[in-house]
């Protein structure tokens, strides 16, 4: 994770477009200014960032499903549950599954686990729209390479 850049996903471990699922890996950094305030003497990964991590996980699934043609933007999060503390240095296994693909929106169910234990989950809604500009699309394509987005997956899905 690069918290200061809001890059919460380290690596895509599996993207299954036919099953409409994704699995990613994300390790909470051992040091961040966030932990100086959240909380002094008891550093914790903020719950809202766990929600964001699940949203980003879902977002990469949606981008994969539409082959980088459109961008999902977080619109709503329901039933966000933060089941246990997540501390610096811990590695999250995040996953998401597409629940529904509507006209201009999508819904997913996402969850995070540590050593197999469920630590967070939510149902997430996205607005899915054209990329606002070429720069943003270029940024997402560059970021996809960083997190090892499986480029063959989308080609396979189109065949």
């Amino acid at each position, binding site marked *: 994770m690069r918290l200061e850049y809001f890059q919460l996903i380290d690596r895509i471990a599996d993207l299954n477009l036919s099953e409409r699922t994704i699995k990613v890996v994300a390790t909470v950094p051992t040091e961040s200014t966030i932990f100086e305030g959240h909380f002094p003497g008891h550093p914790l990964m903020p719950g809202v960032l766990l929600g964001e991590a699940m949203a980003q996980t879902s977002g990469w699934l949606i981008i994969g499903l539409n082959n980088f043609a459109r961008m999902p933007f977080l*619109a*709503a999060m329901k039933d966000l549950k933060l089941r246990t503390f997540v501390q610096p240095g811990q590695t999250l296994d995040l996953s998401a599954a597409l629940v*529904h693909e*509507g*006209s*201009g*929106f999508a*819904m997913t169910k996402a969850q995070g686990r540590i050593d197999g234990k469920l630590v967070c989950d939510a149902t997430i*809604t996205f*607005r899915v729209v054209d990329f606002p500009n070429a720069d943003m699309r270029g940024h997402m394509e560059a970021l996809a390479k960083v997190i090892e987005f499986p480029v063959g997956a989308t080609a396979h899905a189109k065949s």
Partner: protein
Amino acid sequence: MSSTFDTVANIIAETCDIPRDTITPDSHAINDLGIDSLDFLDIAFAIDKAFGIKLPLEQWTQEVNEGKATTEQYFVLKNLAARIDELVAAKGA
């Protein structure tokens, strides 16, 4: 067997916590019931699931924005129910 309107009205009542008896065929989802675009996504999701269709919200929005249609054509509930019936019929054709 409930009508399309009844199904839609029940979805709206449950999704948006609006008293069912205030929802009529002539209700405008936006102007009368105060449903915003985000809440309407939940309604669209429930309608899509209930009827096995995909409401073409983006197309409708574009038509309204371009002046080719009015919001009444799609968001007055009797009209919305008619559009749903058309989509269901088209799916079965």
